[in-house]
């Protein structure tokens, strides 16, 4: 049978080491946010690459039909507009620092989440329709040079891929994105909000 004195003595001889420093701690907090920023930047980089790749078609091929030019134009305009929207969205969170101004940062993170949501919903469908229209016009001339089976294969693969991205991939991305940002908002709100309650 032990008394409380024994517990006190036991506690006193038990030591723990803090494994994180002040600098590391602030860096770690910033890192969580920077992963969202990096993802957003990679997104933009991918879109710029697509923009350049599609525009490069004009340099390497001599298209005869106006439909091909119209198709490529529609695709690069859609990609360009979507890239600008993505960039504007990125700017919302790029300049704000949670460790400096938490309330402003949380507000911006919420706005970013809302914008991402609209990017994957309403805006996405405009983008998908524009791409489909662009591809249909582009294929008009291009597919004429191919055999029937190759034409069918091209159309099925292209539109199948778009349908796959618009349904399964889009839903998975929305879910993952939403959860990730919501978790950050929840964490930062908890950090900021609770302090005021018990100040």
């Amino acid at each position, binding site marked *: 049978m*032990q008394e409380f004195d024994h517990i006190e003595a036991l*506690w006193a001889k038990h030591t723990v080491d803090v494994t994180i420093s002040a600098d590391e701690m602030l860096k770690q907090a910033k890192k969580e946010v920077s992963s969202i920023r990096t993802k957003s930047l990679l997104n933009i980089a991918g879109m710029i690459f697509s923009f350049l790749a599609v525009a490069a078609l004009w340099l390497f091929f001599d298209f005869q039909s106006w439909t091909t030019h119209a198709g490529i134009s529609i695709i690069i305009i859609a990609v360009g507009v979507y890239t600008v929207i993505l960039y504007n969205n990125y700017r919302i969170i790029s300049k704000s620092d949670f460790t400096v101004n938490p309330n402003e940062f949380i507000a911006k993170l919420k706005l970013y989440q809302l914008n991402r949501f609209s990017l994957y919903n309403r805006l996405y469908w405009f983008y998908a329709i524009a791409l489909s229209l662009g591809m249909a016009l582009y294929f008009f001339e291009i597919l004429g040079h191919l055999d029937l089976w190759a034409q069918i294969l091209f159309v099925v693969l292209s539109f199948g891929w778009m349908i796959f991205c618009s349904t399964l991939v889009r839903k998975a991305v929305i879910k993952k994105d939403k959860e990730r940002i919501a*978790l950050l908002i929840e964490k930062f709100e*908890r950090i900021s909000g*609770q302090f005021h309650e018990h100040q």
Partner: protein
Amino acid sequence: MSQKDVLFKEIFDKNSKKIFHLCYGYTGDKDSANDLLQETFLKVWQNLDKFRNKSLISTWIYRIAVNTCLTYLRSEKRQAKDELTENIIENRVEEFSEKNEQVALLYKSISKLEENDRLIITMVLDELPYNEIADISGISEGNLRVKIHRIKQKLTELYNQNARI
């Protein structure tokens, strides 16, 4: 390095061990304790300008840490309390059994106390003055003394019960 950075670093170096001890005592799990330590000091960083020297800075930080610990586990995103307590016990036993069975037993006993009691007893064991604990936990010193007496009894009882198993 700005003046705020220097001040923060000094505050962190002076207080982080005790706060980590509190968080570790509360959760019994190093990763969670690190999370809590980080959340606590982020709040300290953000609100450093608002600190008005009405109380000791250590008291102020402790208050933030206690609040952080309590709300951390209550958060909807966290696991259910029972589930978490089970994890805590398992982790504690795993982490301490080889080093010190008695310390493992003590952590196991603390984890069976009520949330507030866990924090109070951790501060008592860390030898914080009663008036400071009263200030941090927001209860009168008279009530706190009674409460501490009861928690000590309960913890001793739990410790002895666990020791017999």
